[in-house]
């Protein structure tokens, strides 16, 4: 049901929603619902279909990060600004009580996006952190949208969804964003966690133990998005400052990282499975699949300064 975007009216709608849910089902059976909320999560979707996809991810996220979710949907119709409220619920296995989270969907055209900040300010859950997840570039073009940044404890972007003409321009965009947000996360970096973890672990292998300082060249061949490759290069170089870094595109299905130096000849194919080539042997590691929900789960768990990311970002910009 569409409603006004006045915070009081949205909050009243929400109260009505909870009141209705607590009255029980048509048979008069009321096992009850449990309202769970640990944060406000504002999701800026790129399109109507993207908002649907985001809704599915929110459904998965609510198990571990119950929130009041506010999904911002772009409208092509000038002057449009409306909201609707609903709840997403799940029933934990073996339990009789549903756990429910609120969801508010705000549809706004670009010309009215500056009004969204007032609405969000009024309906954010008090005293709990707000995280802003920007799923693409659409909203980033609007100064009105940028008014949401100061409200957010953390802003999460996904560089892989951004089409910057060059790496430099992309990092310029991030550099411009950084001082305006308290904490910044990038799902392009989050996607690298399991790869980085196995690479880090490989350096605990007795054949590479103590050899990180001997790495002289880092070569990254990427098949997908150059920002992720730059992040990976930045991270590796931050641990091997002497090494040169080369990043270039490659045909094929998976990215590849090659580390060379005195006594080091190590190649990783970041496919499924990940293959490590070391000393003439090939080792395999099967990593758990990632999806948007698992990536966001990781980002929402880190609501403090992520020094490793900041360092990798700073080095990546210089590559």
């Amino acid at each position, binding site marked *: 049901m569409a409603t006004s975007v006045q915070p009081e009216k949205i909050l009243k709608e929400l109260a009505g929603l909870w009141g209705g849910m607590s009255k029980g089902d048509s048979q008069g059976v009321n096992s009850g619902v*449990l309202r*769970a909320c*640990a944060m406000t999560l504002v999701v800026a979707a790129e399109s109507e279909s993207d908002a649907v996809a985001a809704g599915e991810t929110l459904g998965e996220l*609510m*198990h*571990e990060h*119950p929130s009041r979710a506010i999904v911002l949907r772009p409208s092509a119709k000038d002057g449009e600004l409306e909201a609707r409220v609903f709840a997403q619920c*799940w029933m*934990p296995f073996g*339990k009789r009580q549903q*756990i429910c989270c609120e969801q508010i969907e705000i549809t706004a055209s670009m010309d009215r996006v500056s009004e969204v900040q007032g609405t969000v300010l009024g309906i954010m859950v008090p005293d709990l952190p707000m995280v802003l997840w920007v799923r693409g570039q659409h909203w980033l073009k609007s100064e009105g949208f940028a008014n949401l940044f100061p409200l957010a404890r953390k802003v999460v972007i996904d560089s892989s969804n951004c089409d910057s003409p060059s790496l430099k321009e992309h990092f310029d965009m991030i550099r411009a964003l950084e001082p305006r947000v308290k904490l910044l996360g990038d799902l392009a970096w989050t996607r690298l*966690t399991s790869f*980085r*973890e*196995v*690479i*880090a*672990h490989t*350096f*605990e*292998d*007795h054949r*590479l*133990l*103590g*050899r*990180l*300082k001997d790495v002289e060249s880092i070569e990254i061949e990427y098949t997908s998005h150059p920002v992720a490759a730059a992040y990976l290069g930045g*991270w*590796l170089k*931050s*641990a*091997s400052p002497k090494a040169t870094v080369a990043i270039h595109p490659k045909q094929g299905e998976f990215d590849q990282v090659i580390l060379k130096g005195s006594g080091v000849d190590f190649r990783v194919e970041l496919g499924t499975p990940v293959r490590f080539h070391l000393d003439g042997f090939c*080792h395999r*590691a*099967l*990593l*758990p699949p990632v999806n948007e929900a698992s990536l966001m789960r*990781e980002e929402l768990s*880190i609501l*403090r300064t*992520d020094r*490793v990311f900041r360092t990798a970002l700073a080095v990546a910009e210089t590559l």
Partner: protein
Amino acid sequence: MADAELLQDPLRFERRVPPCAIVIFGANGDLTKRKLIPALYRLAYERRLSPSFAVIGNSRTAMTDDEYRAKMRESVRKFLEDSPFEESLWEEFAKRLFYLSGDISQPEIFETLAAKLREVDQTFQTQDNVLFYMSTQPSHYEPVVAGLGSVGLQKGTTGWRRLVVEKPFGHNLDTAVTLNVNIQNVFPEHSVYRIDHYLGKETVQNILAFRFGNGIFEPVWNRRYIDHVQITAAESIGVEGRGGYYQESGALRDMIQNHLLQVMSTIAMEPPASYEPDAVRDERAKLLRSIRIPNAEQAAQWAVAGQYGPAKLDGVDAPGFRQEQGVDPNARTDTYAAVNFWVDNWRWSGVPFYIRSGKRMPKRVTDIAVFFKQPPLNMFGDQPLRPNMLIVRIQPEEGISLRFLSKQPGPGMQLRPVSMDFNYGSSFGMRTPTAYETLLVDAMIGDATLYTRQDMVEASWRAVQPILNHWETAKFEFPNYASGSWGPKESEEMLARNGHVWRIP
């Protein structure tokens, strides 16, 4: 290792365990099958084990490696909690699983074990790190430790050696002291990890976060504001085939002396200066040492023993304890124990801590209820004021609730108790690691924070030993509580003497 750490990302990477071999004594026993191997498999599933990792199981039963692997595969399938079983992962895991049959009373087995460890170290590069896990009968602890010492296995050439000991840590204070001395003759105390799986439970760890991560509770966490504390650990089942073992221990030894006194020490300890193993354990130990040791007369007054009788449960005849298989028909075992502890320090002087544990109770529940003092003046006429109560639920429905009074909507001033709930399951819908996963990782990493120490074990024995001594000679009218009840009436009377009643969890 130092430069590999440059690549570490503690915010995002799981805590990794270093290369090591685990030797499990009692590898064919229940604990290994139900808890240890499933926990290790789960750690492998989460990629938290090093590729340089291996397990060597020992017990007397003759088996090949493959037979042992097949047996453990079935156990993992059966006892794995909240996790999928993946055949391909199991195959990788099983390659690192070995079995060594042999009698630990024979010295040769330790020579064979030493050779097997060298072989495993060469094959899997376990870097000479070995964790010995005592999952065997307590009577074997000392012979195993002596055997390990006899071939020098307690000391690595380049790696570390650690010993994990399961409870019971002795049968009484004297045997606990002897056990500690005999262990320490071989392993230094810092290498000994006495496991109390209650301390590995997320909710017990959360007590530390709740008390010391928040500023609002600590100022009222003392005798000025807290009236008394009740700790309950109830099981709905009986001894379920463990009658033979249980009749030698009982509720006081099996639950209160170890698990529940550790829980009590966590709820009552002073703030540690840091979250370092010895800082936390020092405070727990201080608290346990502050428990008043009852004299013979007090031991009779401050503790109640109970034993369940036969009953009809769900229309089925359930045997009383004395009718259970393997139990002496005249057994004097306490299947229920309740103790009123006092802590003699500035914070808790005069505040009773009531701890009870029993089998065949109305339901399975473990929780801590902190009763606050009532307001000094009742300005609401004849309406009784109920104390505020903070409940820490350890299992099931893990969470924290605060009970307080609220005005009932409508005319007049009618008060009604309401509850403000924090529920772990709804706030963090993620899977929480089992206590054994947490504790095994801690032992491999070398973090002893959640393990008990020799002085803690001895202090907790000291607190219950006078009660055990009194019960040796006391006359009991067993059975004295019905299955499905909250225990004997003497337990209610014990609290009534202080003007308190047991809450119904």
